[in-house]
């Protein structure tokens, strides 16, 4: 069968497209024509390009690993930002206004965490085994929240992790908040 020769030709066309910058178009043509996936694997091996074949084999999404990691990092940064607004408050007697303001911050933190989850699963589809090594420096939302004394419930809220020295942590955050000029409630 002449398919073997064609295969070499197709690989060459895609490789050239990689350099020329129209890889996404060429590879889409390749897949929609029903050519072997192994040829795309061959072309992308050792390159920055990653792909997922969608729509039951009729379409392909290509991304560079740099762009994927960038999106992941951005999602982690949003969790870090949201976590920086979390404060431990008086567990025995928090006033209503402080609680209300914190509820918002806590909901936002939980949303950032679920966005990160979604980003992880979307980006994860593109990754090769070796790519995970490049992601080890990225923190999980669990680590980020734990550092500030919180735990995400997996849904719409983050909760304070109870600990023996809660009182000390509470006083610390209050002092820090005052330093930053944050008005907490009416106390």
């Amino acid at each position: 069968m002449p398919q073997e020769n064609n295969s070499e030709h197709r690989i060459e066309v895609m490789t050239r497209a990689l350099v020329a910058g129209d890889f996404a178009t060429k590879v889409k043509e390749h897949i929609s024509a029903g050519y072997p996936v192994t040829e795309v694997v061959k072309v992308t091996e050792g390159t920055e390009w990653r792909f997922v074949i969608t729509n039951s084999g009729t379409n392909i999404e290509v991304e560079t690993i740099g762009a994927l990691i960038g999106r992941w990092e951005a999602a982690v940064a949003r969790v870090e930002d949201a976590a920086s607004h979390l404060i431990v408050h008086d567990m025995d007697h928090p006033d209503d206004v402080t609680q209300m303001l914190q509820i918002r911050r806590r909901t936002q933190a939980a949303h950032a965490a679920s966005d990160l989850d979604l980003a992880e699963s979307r980006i994860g589809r593109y990754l090769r085994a070796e790519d995970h090594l490049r992601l080890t420096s990225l923190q999980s939302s669990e680590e980020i929240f734990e550092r500030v004394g919180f735990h995400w419930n997996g849904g719409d809220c983050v909760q304070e992790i109870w600990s023996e020295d809660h009182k000390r942590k509470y006083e610390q955050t209050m002092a820090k908040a005052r330093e930053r000029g944050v008005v907490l409630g009416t106390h």
Partner: protein
Amino acid sequence: MNDTKIRIASLEQVFASDDEEAVHGAIISHLVAKNPLSELVDVARKTEWRFVLTRNDVEVARRDELKSWYQELVDQVADSIPALEAAERGGSPFARLEARDIAADYCETVTADATRLCRFLFPEDGFPNASDDIEKLLSRTGLKWDGAHTIEREPGEYDRLFQEAVNVLAAREANRNQRGAQFS
């Protein structure tokens, strides 16, 4: 040529079943043996099975299940609308915020899942359009979903409503302190 026919016949047989594991396995073996993707596409097209190929794995799902799942998620948004309307008609700022947050959550879920569904389907299956469906459902409430976590009349309105709620609490607290002072 004969090989191709046999291969396709055996794929067809597996795809006619509702055995997810078997379909998953058949797709992998087919690709590992470097057989053309077009054969899988042609076979799948005539059945309910849809798939996505990642670098290391194959995800499979049934079209009918994807579609009914999507409909369930749209219904969830629809079911949250009466409470949203009731709260808007005369609920406290707290009730309004809560109803909006609940509905926004459902909007997010249906949208995230629509994206997932679209990855599986053939164009001729018809792609769900979550933002259109949500807009239609919300249209009679005068509210809009911002595509993320917020439902509001116009940008910034949710923030004002939230501040209103905080003010109500602050006033209540001030009132309490005053009363406390009177009795002491």
